[in-house]
């Protein structure tokens, strides 16, 4: 029996599921070892009997929690797919802003027409068994993760910083190029794709265990960044994690 797999999405751009489609089209052999029973973006069939659930997106409104718990109850394995599910992602940027102001800026006097609350990762709502990090996820890492899950293992993700990937890729350090980068505190595993393209790491794969935040801020300061710029850089993908580190609760 092939394991039955379902895909779900909450607040996100669905880019990670598109990356899944892209992975499946490059590795059609994966479709021979799993059975996809639900994938709203790609198919009309809808099966509720699944063992593995991949969830993209963060939880940004109370009414989504019930569905997330329902998936948790059905699935033996729940995998958080991508930065929104894993870290709250960019959706959490607004967690540092007063919620009412955010609502009013976009929706004016109709701000109460919709439901929202501070963005949170899946792990803040349910127990998550495994994570595939990134914004978007890395194709190869997804394919490897599926293989690991089929072998009854948790997908292994690196716990060392991106700088290791960067060295292996033989990139020149962004700091030596006069630019800035969050590589020293960010989880590796993406083959340092952004530095390889001439852009500093934005931290989309999340912080490594025990990151030295003091030191990275100092390095950014020494490279000419203002406190506001540093705060912006550390909040693109890392708002939820840095607020947790600081013990700050969302506005």
């Amino acid at each position, binding site marked *: 029996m092939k394991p039955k797999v379902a895909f779900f*999405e*909450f*607040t*996100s*751009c*669905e*880019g*990670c*599921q*598109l*990356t899944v*489609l*892209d992975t499946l*089209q*490059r590795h*059609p052999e994966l*479709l021979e070892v799993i059975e*996809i029973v639900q*994938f*709203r*973006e*790609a*198919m*009309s*069939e*809808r099966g509720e009997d699944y063992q593995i659930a991949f969830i993209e997106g963060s939880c*940004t*409104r109370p009414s*989504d929690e019930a569905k997330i718990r329902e998936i948790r109850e059905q699935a033996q394995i729940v995998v958080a797919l991508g930065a929104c599910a894993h870290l709250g*992602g*960019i*959706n959490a*940027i*607004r967690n540092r*802003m007063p919620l009412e*102001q*955010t*609502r009013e*800026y*976009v*929706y004016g006097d*109709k701000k109460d*027409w*919709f*439901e*929202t609350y501070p963005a949170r990762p899946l792990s803040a709502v349910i127990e998550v068994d495994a994570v595939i990090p990134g*914004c*978007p996820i890395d194709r190869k890492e997804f394919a490897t993760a599926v293989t690991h899950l089929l072998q009854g293992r948790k997908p292994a993700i690196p716990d060392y910083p991106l700088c290791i990937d960067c060295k292996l890729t033989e990139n020149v350090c962004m700091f030596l190029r006069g630019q800035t980068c969050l590589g020293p505190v960010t989880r590796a595993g993406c083959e340092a*794709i*952004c530095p*390889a*393209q*001439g*852009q500093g790491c*934005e931290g989309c794969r999340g912080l490594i265990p025990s990151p030295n935040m003091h030191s990275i801020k100092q390095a950014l300061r020494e490279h000419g960044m203002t406190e*506001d*710029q540093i705060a*912006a850089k550390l909040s*693109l993908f890392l708002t939820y994690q840095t607020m947790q580190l600081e013990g700050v609760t969302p506005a």
Partner: protein
Amino acid sequence: MTTLKVDVHHVTRVEGHGNIVVDVQNGVLKQCDLQIVETPRFFEAMLRGRPYLDASHLTSRICGICAVGHATASLRATEQALGVTPSPQTTLLRKLNFHGEILDSHILHIYMLVAPDYLGVGSVIPLAQSAPDVVLRALRMKQLAGDLCAAICGRHTHPISMTVGGFTHFPSLETLRELRARLVASRADCDATIELLAGLDFPRFERDTEYVALHKGEEYCFIDGVIDSSDGGRWDLEDYRLITNETIVPHSSAKHTRHQRDSYMVGALARFNINHDKLHPRARAAAEALGLAPKVINPYLIAAAQAVEVVHCTEDAILLIDQLLEMGIRHEEPAAPTRLTGEGVGAAEVPRGTLFHHYQIEDGAIVGANCVIPTGQNLANIELDMRALVPTILDRSQEDITLALEMLVRAYDPCISCSTHMLNVRFV
């Protein structure tokens, strides 16, 4: 008298969450809504206070499908605000990159989201068994499009190396030559795509509306230009609010737009209707083979117009690569801002239609942002199509009516999670 209730909870094979709700009582259409139930995303609020260089990276996360389109419109808005003039090479690379995204998105829509309906299956997966050549062709074309984007901007889903004023990484001439060879080889796949669509039995439903698209000289325009309407009139990008002027209507859960009529259409069919004479000759021939001549007023034919654009973008990408090969690729620094305070509007024809980004920047930080996305502009038009369609098909089975409505919504290729600017209301 007919009584009908349709309630499609989360339309499948579209990007994002939407519901179709139709209520006909005793032959009278009481309700006919495309409800948008996606969570609010607040991008405009999240942009405030951020350094201008972050804007394209942040807004590319509005959408996984049109990430290059959002980044491009965002960069153009920032460049207009800060007085940045990109080099001719940057402009060529952006256009080439943009074609990659149009190709990727259109192939996805035509083959994976739309074709299953016409071939009587629920997804592309069973087609891999019954029509492997069709699926393999789609995969081949999609991979080429994805590889094209990756070569220019590092990655299709959320581009990396596109930045204000230019690029931070450049493709090698060898990469461009390889891409060119693959694009030339894909002409056969383009022809087969046109043949496939020529064989589909598109529903015969027509409703004339206003068609809106960007227009620029002799180009089949995707980036910059002015706003053009099939009902007449041209407007500068800075005046986009005169066209999009968003309104709230009681029967809809999302902000709607209207211009010279009750609704207007943006997207491949609108572009075709407005810029048809600027298509590459091979694309014009493809349109002829599909029996398309402006003005086409059957919304189900959006997929056919997309196929014509697939031919056009493939041909134009070859021409752009030829220009780049002739010029050679220079590793140039991005053009620098001439000021750090200003206001600008950027626009692009993303796969689903005209996209506007509008920023106010002060001392290098964004202080105001407005993004108007194509799906939001199409919503009113989709609903008016549904309202016109339902009474004409009431004699069919509930199942057939539901499918016809789903296919209509799907024809527009709505990108609901782009809902930066949509209201979310729960009906009781």
